[in-house]
């Protein structure tokens, strides 16, 4: 399996200013064959949805350390709907408490990745979702 030909947006919504984790994931995805775009820090949900649509990505990975992940995820999903782009898959990574994971999946997220997860597992999960 490979992510060859898949387009992936790594996005940083919310206010935290750390993107080391986001950049590590971006490079791992590239090495798995994907075309990867990174938004930069502190982007609004509306902005992330617009970039995802203009770039026609298969996946948006939301990297969040700020704690407001529930609101940011549902905003992003709503903004994608406005573009008729609900088929773009959303993954979430960062510091997400155990108790919120089920609710994120319920809201429409395809997978939640934590910092302690091996990169190969992250990539395999995305490959599986896209195949």
């Amino acid at each position, binding site marked *: 399996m490979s992510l060859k030909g898949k387009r992936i947006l790594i996005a940083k919504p919310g206010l935290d200013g750390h993107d080391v984790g986001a950049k590590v994931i971006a490079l791992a995805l590239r090495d798995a064959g994907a075309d990867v775009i*990174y938004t*930069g820090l502190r982007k609004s949900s509306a902005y992330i949805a617009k970039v995802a649509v203009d770039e026609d990505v298969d996946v948006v990975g939301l990297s969040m350390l700020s704690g407001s992940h529930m609101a940011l995820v549902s905003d992003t999903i709503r903004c994608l709907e406005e573009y008729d782009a609900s088929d773009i898959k959303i993954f979430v990574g960062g510091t997400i408490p155990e108790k919120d994971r089920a609710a994120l999946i319920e809201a429409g997220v395809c997978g939640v990745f934590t910092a302690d997860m091996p990169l190969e597992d992250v990539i395999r999960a995305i490959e599986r979702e896209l195949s």
Partner: protein
Amino acid sequence: MSGLAPRSRRALGRELTRLAQASVAESLAHSAQRPEPSMETARIGFTGAPGAGKSTLISRLARLRLAACRDQGGVAILGIDPTSPLTGGSILGDRIRMDAIANEPELYIRSLASRSSNDGLADNVLDLLVTVESYGFREVLLETVGVGQAEHAIRHSVDTLVMVLQPNAGDAIQAMKSGVLELADIYVINKADLPGAKKSASEIRGIVQRSQAAWRAPVIEISQQHGEGLAKLDSAISEHLAWQAEHRNASETLRRRRHYHVQSLIVRRVAELLDHRPQLLDTTNLAESYAEILQLLASDAKRYSRQEETGW
């Protein structure tokens, strides 16, 4: 609401992905239904080494270009970054330099991977340009990967070609002296805040002034810190587009584009054949491999010769 409607953005995005990933056969099938290229959209290309500051410059320039054509369709930017030959993946990093303008509704930014192209452009780039143009943009700004012989391919694909150089770009200046780089319509000495910019600019002016071409290419010093050079570049582009509208032979331009288009399809088709049938290379001599590839191309030819001629 100004700019493209949300659903048009979605449609354009999808169409570009499909075309960017199309095989030679798919691209040819598509060409039969494609609209004629209108030449109403101005294509402005930017080339120069990686790190020369092309994306940063395009972002700042796009704001000025957009201000002048907001009501006439706006501006699209296509930014090409290299595909890793080892993994097939890429980091498409041009967009992140364009953050400051990315919220403009009349602007469309699209990042592309070079895929199998090694001429600084991307697979099917002429199809991608025509598709973007069919959405009514007034101007398209195209950023190349900027390696090696990128200049020739982009020269044939755009109306105005801007070459972005850094101060002390000794290699580029040597190359220009030997004549291989003299293809641009406008030269930018970027990062003019760094030492050596004046000297590089005057060297390049010296070379350009000796050129016999009818259009006298301006050499403009620009830095991210100051606005003056940028305004000069903006007007130089408008002047070149106007000059060209008056002087060029449109059918000759379309011919040159078709030349590049056909040639790149054939090169890519040969690469596809070799990828799918590596045994083509297991022959005792070179001429035999060559002949077998020609035979396969000939069977392609039977398939395509019956198709209608299209506007390229």
